[in-house]
């Protein structure tokens, strides 16, 4: 029988869902970091995050739907809510998140952007023009409401796998945490990448690096106990870990995910940020370095999901 049922579509979906969750979460935090009346560099983070957040998860959802055996039956997912099924919860969560993220995105549009958008509506849909409301004042409320949902989506991508008892590689709550922090760090990374093109986003970068370092440190300290715990667990789990400790995914895991996708960007960011914080030096913003770091993190996040989805399915109880 076929071993790998969930393939690259699901990997992408998990990655994109996490990415959106991260984008939204960081954006939402940024929303609270400035006084409403004052111009702040953090507005740029909040705005960019809000504008970017809905799209990856939407693409991810489309991928998810196309991965179904009968994609045209996907609506059946929404005829039920089964609280014992991570996928059922997840489907609803995704809908909710998509809605909030979209509204939030809308809320962060400038007046001109809104007008442009509605002006572009085809004539038949012109009646939608009456929805051209200014909802800027919802931003914080949306951020507040959306934060737990985005965290939920970030966790859910891990719970989806972690809840499967029959796959020893997955069956630990650490997977959900790992996926959450990976999601948040990829959100940060996407923002770093998004801002890299702007003029001297120094303040923004300091904040994002700071967040990112937190997320990656947490991620690292989840990977560590995951491995240790697994090695001290029952034979089935030990065997499943062989997939990354001397199995088909070893190089991918250690070199590309852990080395290039997690530790390298962590070191780079630390090197950039620590002197600023500790010695109060000036922050040398290096655009290329920032973009590279971001790409490495994004690559690492993708690989993490790839490794987990594939290795997990290959692992089995004796």
């Amino acid at each position: 029988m076929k071993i790998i049922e969930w393939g690259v579509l699901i990997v992408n979906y998990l990655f994109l869902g996490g990415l959106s969750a991260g984008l939204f979460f960081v954006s939402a935090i940024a929303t609270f970091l400035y006084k409403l009346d004052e111009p702040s560099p953090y507005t740029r983070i909040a705005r960019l995050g809000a504008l970017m957040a809905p799209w990856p998860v939407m693409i991810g959802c489309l991928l998810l739907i196309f991965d179904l055996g009968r994609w045209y039956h996907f609506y059946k997912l929404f005829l039920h809510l089964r609280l014992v099924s991570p996928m059922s919860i997840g489907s609803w969560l995704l809908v909710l998140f998509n809605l909030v993220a979209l509204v939030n995105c809308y809320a962060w549009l400038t007046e001109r952007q809104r007008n442009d958008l509605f002006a572009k509506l085809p004539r038949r849909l012109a009646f939608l023009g009456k929805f051209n409301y200014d909802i800027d004042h919802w931003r914080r409320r949306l951020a507040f409401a959306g934060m737990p949902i985005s965290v939920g989506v970030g966790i859910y991508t891990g719970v989806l796998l972690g809840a499967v008892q029959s796959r020893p590689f997955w069956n630990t709550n650490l997977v959900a945490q790992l996926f959450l922090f990976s999601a948040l760090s990829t959100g940060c990374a996407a923002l770093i990448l998004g801002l890299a093109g702007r003029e001297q986003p120094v303040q923004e970068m300091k904040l994002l690096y700071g967040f990112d370092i937190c997320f990656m440190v947490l991620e690292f300290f989840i990977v560590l106990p995951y491995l240790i715990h697994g090695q001290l667990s029952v034979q089935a789990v030990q065997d499943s870990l062989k997939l990354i400790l001397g199995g088909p995914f070893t190089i991918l895991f250690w070199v590309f995910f852990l080395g290039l996708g997690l530790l390298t960007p962590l070191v780079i960011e630390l090197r950039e940020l620590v002197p600023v914080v500790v010695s109060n030096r000036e922050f040398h913003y290096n655009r290329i370095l920032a973009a590279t770091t971001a790409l490495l993190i994004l690559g690492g996040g993708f690989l993490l999901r790839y490794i987990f989805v594939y290795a997990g399915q290959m692992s089995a109880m004796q």
Partner: protein
Amino acid sequence: MAARPKRYAMVVDSKKCINCKACVVACRAENSVPLAYSRPWMNEETRGVWPKLMAAFAPEQCHQCDHPACVRVCPTGASHHRPDGIVVVNEAECVGCRYCMIACPYDARFFREDKGVVEKCDFCVHRLERGQLPACVETCPSKVRVFGDLNDPKSKLAELLSDRQYRVKKPEAGTGPQIYYLI
């Protein structure tokens, strides 16, 4: 969970199994399963060095668990647990996400590419409703499988389980499998 009025289960007396594959073909015909898939399958094991050898065979299929992981993870409820203990997939509700396949510790399910749904052994519920045994049970030449109601103390199945030692596969999965292998 409330007691079930019936609890269908299966006993496998692997010592009698001669690996003749009748069950596999019978199921294929009965359930119109395309050649690429099979609901039941045979486990074969040969060990030893000439001429000290042993061989063992045992059929396996969906274990119709008491706490089926597949049912738990199913997002639409297409996979569900009947009151008589049989786990079935309602094709109409299945969206083909294959989460159940990933969740099943026995790999007892397969994805029908042609239909876009997941399929597995259902103890031939349509035959049970006609009063017939599951196709694999009925056809077995050496009568390896014994099918019956666990809650009926007079059934051959209950009798075997009270007389003989048995084991279930992967009990640590915690799914409460209902195929009992006699020792």
